[in-house]
């Protein structure tokens, strides 16, 4: 169990300056669906939103930022990523999100990617300054039907900024089956055998370790099982499995989820999609289409988003903007980027009301459009410096005629 991690918050000085109280004046609260001509003031103290009202300017605050009518939202969810689990995609000793070719030959649901989390990864500030406050750490598909588990993590630079319940990853798509004896039925064969071992005495376990059994039981008790599946028939199979073993299931990928949106809605199983998927990239995805999110939402299915990117996780704003361009209501999309993933995966509440954690973003315009960016990011009530390795590279190369060479420009 990770309760230890939930209770320990180590904020690093890097990138985030703390302030006792902060007033964001004249914010447009689009997340609430408020009309843009009514603005609100947001008072933050001790890292928490303490009051939201139309006029708090009389209230003393250590710092005041005038949002001047710009949208303010909770900091965004970056999707399922390997942020902090990888520095460079093709440098394998910096990539820690995936279990492959392990010598034991066993299935290891206890593989916990949080043990590899590095808050100093350059990709974290790169992502945070684009308005992203938290992500769901991936145990990426390897060569096993269960690839391990992770949880939510805040992008605040803390070593132990984990939140929420254990999230276990199961892979039941065609690609997973291909690595498991050549059939996706083998995924189900193994998953059934693994779950049968949950009632097996530890000394008789064949496929998992006692630690793996504990991890699975914990995830089964209060965690989430994310099943990677695209094909409609695979999704239906997931629903049956989740019901049989009484699991809180979520579909990730779900390119054909719209085909089975009624059963998904009945089973109350959410779907995490990349809203840009509209090509039959595999035979699992012949039904991929741009209005997947809109169709699922209309049928009453909870939709969340991921981009499949880690370094460019910031692209998720554009991904979701495209879902809105293809029929998903703007307000629904904003909830899917702010409060919804936190509540689904058991994280700290993230919504614009008093008592909520003050992870907020002031946007230059519509946060789901490619025409806007995050102007200010506030994490735990503190203003971010809005610096990353990339902003420093820009500062080094923006001057047109450096005097002494760019290596001497050290922003």
């Amino acid at each position, binding site marked *: 169990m990770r309760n230890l991690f939930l209770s320990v918050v180590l904020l690093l000085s890097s990138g985030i300056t703390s302030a006792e109280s902060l007033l964001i004046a004249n914010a447009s609260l689009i997340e609430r669906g408020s009309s843009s001509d009514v603005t609100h003031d947001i008072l933050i103290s001790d890292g928490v939103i303490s009051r939201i009202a139309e006029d708090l300017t009389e209230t003393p605050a250590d710092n005041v930022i005038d949002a001047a009518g710009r949208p303010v939202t909770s900091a965004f969810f970056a999707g399922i990523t390997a942020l902090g689990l990888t520095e460079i995609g093709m*440098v394998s000793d910096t990539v820690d999100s995936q279990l492959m070719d392990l010598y034991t030959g066993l299935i290891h649901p206890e593989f916990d990617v949080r043990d590899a989390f590095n808050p100093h990864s350059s990709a974290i500030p790169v992502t945070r300054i684009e308005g992203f406050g938290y992500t769901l750490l991936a145990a990426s598909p390897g060569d096993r039907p269960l690839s391990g588990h992770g949880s939510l993590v805040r992008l605040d630079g803390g070593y132990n900024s984990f939140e929420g319940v254990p999230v276990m990853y199961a892979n039941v798509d065609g690609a997973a089956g291909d690595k498991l004896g050549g059939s996706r039925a083998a995924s189900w064969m193994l998953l059934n055998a693994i779950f049968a071992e949950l009632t097996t005495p530890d000394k008789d376990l064949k496929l998992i370790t006692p630690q793996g059994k504990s991890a699975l039981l914990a995830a089964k008790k209060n965690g989430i099982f994310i099943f990677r599946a695209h094909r409609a028939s695979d999704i239906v199979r997931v629903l049956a499995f989740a019901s049989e073993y009484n699991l809180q299931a979520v579909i990730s990928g779900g390119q054909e989820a719209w085909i089975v949106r009624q059963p998904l809605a009945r089973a109350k199983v959410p779907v995490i999609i990349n809203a840009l998927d509209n090509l*039959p*990239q595999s035979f699992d995805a012949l*039904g991929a289409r741009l209005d997947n999110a809109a169709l699922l939402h209309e049928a009453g299915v909870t939709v969340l988003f991921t981009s499949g990117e880690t370094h460019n996780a910031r692209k998720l704003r554009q991904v979701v903007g495209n879902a809105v361009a293809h029929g998903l209501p703007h307000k629904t999309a904003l909830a899917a980027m702010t409060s919804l993933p936190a509540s689904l995966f058991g994280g700290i509440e993230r919504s614009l009301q008093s008592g909520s954690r003050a992870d907020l973003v002031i946007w230059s315009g519509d946060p789901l459009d*490619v*025409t806007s960016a995050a102007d200010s990011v506030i994490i735990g009530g503190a203003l971010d410096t809005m610096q990353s390795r990339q902003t420093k590279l820009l500062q080094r190369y923006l001057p047109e005629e450096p005097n002494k060479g760019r290596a001497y420009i050290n922003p």
Partner: protein
Amino acid sequence: MLSAFRILASLALFIAPIALADVFPSTYATPSANPLLFQNATILTGDGERLDNASLYVSNGRIEWIGAGTVTPDATVVDAAGKWITPGLIDVHSHLGVYPSPGVAAHSDGNEATAPVTAEVWAEHSIWPQDPGFTRALAGGVTTMQILPGSANLFGGRGVTLKNVPSISYQAMKFPNAPHGLKMACGENPKRVYGNRNQAPSTRMGNVAAYRNAWIKAQRYVDDWDRYERAIAEAAAKKDDSSTSMASALLTTTPPKRDLELETLAGALRGEILVHMHCYRADEMLTILDMAQEFGYRVGTFHHGVEAYKIADQLAAEGVCGALWADWWGFKIEAYDGIQENIALVDRPNGGCAIVHSDSSEGIQRLNQEAAKAMLRGNRAGLSIQPERAIRWITSNAAKSLGIDDQTGSLKPGLMADLVLWNQDPFSVYAKALQVYIDGSLSYEQGNPDLNPQSDFELGQLMGVTP
């Protein structure tokens, strides 16, 4: 009856690589279409101008005029009030057809990764015209694209420029008279692919040595053919009994042996084939420019150029384009220094030629959004980039990179009427191509099932499933 001279002369033409007959010729036929009059549109011409509330007239597949002019009575009138018109978008870096959807192993035809120098292969011979990606790109306003081989090899082979028209054959898509591209690659990919097999190149210096060896062979090949052609030409120019001396010259002078690899490289040295160089790091791009000087060829465009912003002035001074992503970085160490201002900074100097490219079946559908992101970052860095400037990155600059800017990529009288009618300012996530015209012919219309082409592959899939 043909004289010996004529037979031999035509034989000589047939053998000479410069005068090679047009092989695998384009069979693209300009479709016939009514003249078109667009009215009340906001027009981005593609070469830097913005016109508000303007008209544009198309006839015989060509732009006839912008602003005002005569209209024939049979013209179709399109009221574009509140809408925007841009040139058809151009992607200089696509693998549609060679890495198609579905991405099954048997469709993986983009890298002839069996030798580091495969200048002899042509991407067009790998293209599967039924790739559904072509139709998706069309819905995103893409009317022209270059299909390139991948980057496993130092010399990956020839790229081909296509018009985005649904076809049975790539020949029917082939952009008439567009030059071929030569795909080359710097850096990690070639040295990884071959180094892992314990063969050259396994280092960056190995990469450069292998390029230079290939260019040396190509120079000799050019010299051999030049010498041969000069001998034939001199014989033909002899005043006395030219047909006899020509015949004897043809019989006594052996033509060099044709070599497909060297034909491509020779084409690049002669400037007939445009060089498209996959290169990430600034220092490597500068090495390549020195090498181009050594062998007397031009690098047309650096592709990916994640560090191009570090050498934007040099690129502009050399007239080399940078075909770049808006925000990709970090997936390998040569992409570690990527910044979102790259495109805007390459665009900044006088003569800068910035291009937004996709290298992606997803990105090609949203070149407008990619350009919007790059424009935003430039503006937030203090550069003042208006839509009429940014549109060049996905239209006229791309056309220049492909050597077709005298045919498409801007809305100028006489150019192909490749254009997109947008529901709004195209630089937004909410912008949609309402209509896409190729050579004045309506090829795609949003929401109109009769104008939404579908590949053979997608026909009849998921029978019985309806939204």
